[in-house]
């Protein structure tokens, strides 16, 4: 419902002809490989991520979860010497193909980082950043977007009186939820979150987990986490990574109750080296 509201406000989902997010499969990864210079970081990964589901990436440190996540909105382009083969389709479009509008891709595939990184601007300007980038000038429209985004990230009541205060003055948990609101203001169809709660206290973590549940009504969420309970609690699907490979990708319930791979079993039961 809120989404419809925003469409009325005029933030369009960009080039509808480019991305089609009404498909069943939001992200389709096909035989993908990634190298950092000579280091083979992602090996032959294929998976389909369904629209409206929360997918969790789990696995030991350095196994390539963040790398794969960053490939989905092409943040890896910032890393010199990073090379990718295979195909990633988002909204039915090959995002590494020719003529991809990178800003539009990143607008549609939002990202939340491990460490909260609000800009040193006011709360309002942080959230209005993406809409302004995409041409919204009208104050009333911006006000509306800011309010909707803050409501969607369950922060409106906390922050409505502090919109003009610096975002750097918020607590860590508030900053992270502000970053989620900032990403939501771009009206993404997919939201990538890289260990969004690893720097937060349990209460803030709980709030963000609740948020994920709420968000999946409107966006497809991919979340990297080191917290097994968290993955079990909030995700519909779970992918287990090991040394750059996806060992197992299945329903979360299945992975945590009856994994088909002994390595997965060892990892989730905490017996992994």
């Amino acid at each position, binding site marked *: 419902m809120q989404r419809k509201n925003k469409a009325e406000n*005029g*933030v*369009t989902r*960009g*080039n509808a002809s480019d991305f089609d997010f009404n498909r069943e499969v939001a992200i389709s990864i096909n035989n993908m490989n990634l190298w950092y210079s000579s280091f083979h970081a992602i090996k032959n990964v294929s998976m389909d991520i369904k629209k409206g589901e929360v997918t969790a990436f789990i696995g030991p440190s350095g196994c390539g979860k963040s790398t794969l996540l960053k490939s989905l*909105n092409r*943040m890896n382009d*910032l890393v010199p010497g990073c090379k990718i083969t295979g195909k990633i389709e988002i909204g039915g479009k090959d995002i590494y193909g020719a003529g991809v509008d*990178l*800003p*539009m*891709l*990143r*607008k549609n595939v*939002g*990202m939340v*980082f491990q*460490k909260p*990184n*609000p*800009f*040193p*601007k*006011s709360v309002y300007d942080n959230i209005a*950043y*993406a809409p302004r*980038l*995409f*041409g*919204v*000038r*009208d*104050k009333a*429209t911006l006000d509306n977007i800011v309010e909707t985004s803050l409501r969607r990230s369950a922060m409106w009541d906390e922050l409505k009186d502090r919109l*003009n*205060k*610096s975002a*750097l*003055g*918020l607590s860590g948990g508030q900053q992270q939820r502000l*970053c989620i609101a*900032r*990403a939501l203001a*771009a009206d993404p169809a997919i939201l990538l979150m890289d260990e969004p709660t690893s720097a937060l206290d349990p209460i803030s973590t709980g709030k963000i987990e609740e948020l994920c549940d709420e968000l999946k009504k409107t966006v497809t969420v991919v979340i990297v986490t080191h917290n097994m309970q968290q993955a079990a609690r909030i995700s519909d699907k779970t992918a287990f990574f090991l040394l750059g490979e996806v060992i197992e990708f299945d329903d979360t319930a299945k992975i945590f109750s009856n994994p088909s791979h002994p390595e997965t079993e060892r990892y989730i039961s905490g017996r992994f080296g």
Partner: protein
Amino acid sequence: MSLCENEQVVSEPPADSSKNTKLVKQKGSRKIQFEKHIFFACALLSIVAVAAIVIFIFINSVPAFSKIGFFQFIFGTKWFPDGYKTDPSNASEYFGIFPMIINSLCVTLLSLLFGGILGVFSALFLVYWCPAKMKKIVEQLINVFAGIPSVMYGFFGLVFIVPILAKMTGTTGLGIMACTLVLMLMILPTIASMSKNALKSVPESYYEGAIALGATKEQAIFTVMLPAAKSGVVSGLIMGMGRAVGEAMAVKLVAGGVAAFPEGLFSPIRTMTSSIAMEMGYASGLQRDALIATGLILLVFVLFLNFALARVNRAKAADNGGRTSKAGKANENVKGFSAEVVYIGRRMFGVKEPIAEPVYKKKGIICLILKYFSFVVTAFVGLCLVVIVGFILVNGLPNMPDLFSGDAVGELGKAIFGTVALIFLTLVIAVPLGICAAIYLHEYSRPGSRTVKAIRLFNDTLGGVPSIVFGLFGNIVFVSWMGMSQCLLAGALTMALIILPTVIRAVEESLIAVPDSLREASLALGASKLQTVFKVVLPQALPGIFTAIVLSIGRIVGESAALIFTMGSSLAFLPQGIVGRGNASCTLTVYMYVLANEGAEMNIAYALAVILLLIVAVIYVGLGLLEHFGKNKGDRKCKEKIKPKTA
């Protein structure tokens, strides 16, 4: 050797008697108190110096204010000291500096505008678009650019910019435009390097955040990174402004000297600084007092700028701490208000807000244009440097033989002697004091205490006082009041005050870099604090002290305004002593200024410019290489340390 001594100290106190150990302890602590006082006194020097400058300049301005009248002096529009000599009853008629104040402001603001744009945009290019290989070279060039003596800029303005302007406009070419261009070139490196540092210290995560929201690289830079570096950039602008308003000699060479309101960009003018530089050499009586009073106005202006700078820095600290400063709040309100006005305006004229695609492309294009603008600006700055250096080399090299023959070579010898003697004397005075002050600030003070903050503030303030004001102060105190007359020592004392802030800061930074574990190790071996500082900490900090010395030499070599009225500009004979009448001397830079000012022997001035350029290049490139080398060594050490872990 030091280890042996430490062992002796440890074995000395008898272990059985508690009374005795107590005594030893008390003795030790009293000793710490004593040396602490000495270091503290050195650290207080910058406060004393600023206070002395203000007080002495003020006291010596009082006669001018009382005879002329404060308002007649500031707002009077006529400056005609000769008229006063024939009509001494009407002092207030002949000593008005209002045109000079206006001229100073015009020239400063214009040069700040141009220099600011050039400096900030070339810094943007350097940080975000410059190819890695070129980056190091350009950074070195900026350092050299910053180290070129102001007189050299003035000289370049006189022989290159002014003739071009004259041809283009059919005037003399002297005036506001010429001053603006010279000052622009002079403050550009300061602004560029401070903006560069500010941009570099903006966290990478802001950039990633903006990119992840769909910003292009250009948009991320102009909408997030540059605003995040705002306070550092503003500090650079304020410092540049301070340099521009305080510059005397370079401006004097291209201003023209007419004490009147500007009739245009190309009519001759006179600024506050150039007025002092022109007349201080021969002025006496009320004219001298009025010049000193002009210096006081200048000083007040600069102190005000320093105060603004301190505020910006405080706001920066508050920003980093996440608190909104008062200034920041006001800013936000203003911003909100202006957005409102724009919005209402658009509504009134029925501007419809176009949304999504077309505008987003257009907005990206604005940032893209700014990006290419930064390319153009950097190319222009590079071209300026090439032209300055090229022009001086092309005109100077053929004249080198003139410099080494006839009368000139004798004068060159005297100027070299004067320069070397001045460097030696100044360093002997300033370096020990600076080291002691830095030791107090970093080793003995309570960090963050009010005293330390005050000392730092005054240190920065002292660093921002214009050379010409130092010149006035040295002339008043050392030359006249102490009766030294113009001599090497008076010049060295003045110069010592100028370089003191630089020395203190450079040494302090190197002290900060010495790891605490070394101090603890030394103290644990039983060394006293004093022993630890002198035998363990200072040797580690030697590279920093060396850097401070080289920087100071660069500053001394480039100085002119502060020396002309303290050490003199005489090349008549070699000084026999360092103090007293007849021991005036002259440095290479002052020599060049005198030649350029008289316009008599330009061939020799050109040749001198080449030599000065060479000295500056050696100093700053050497310094850069030293730093580079040191850093590389450090990196390699780190890598070696880390490697075994990962392997």
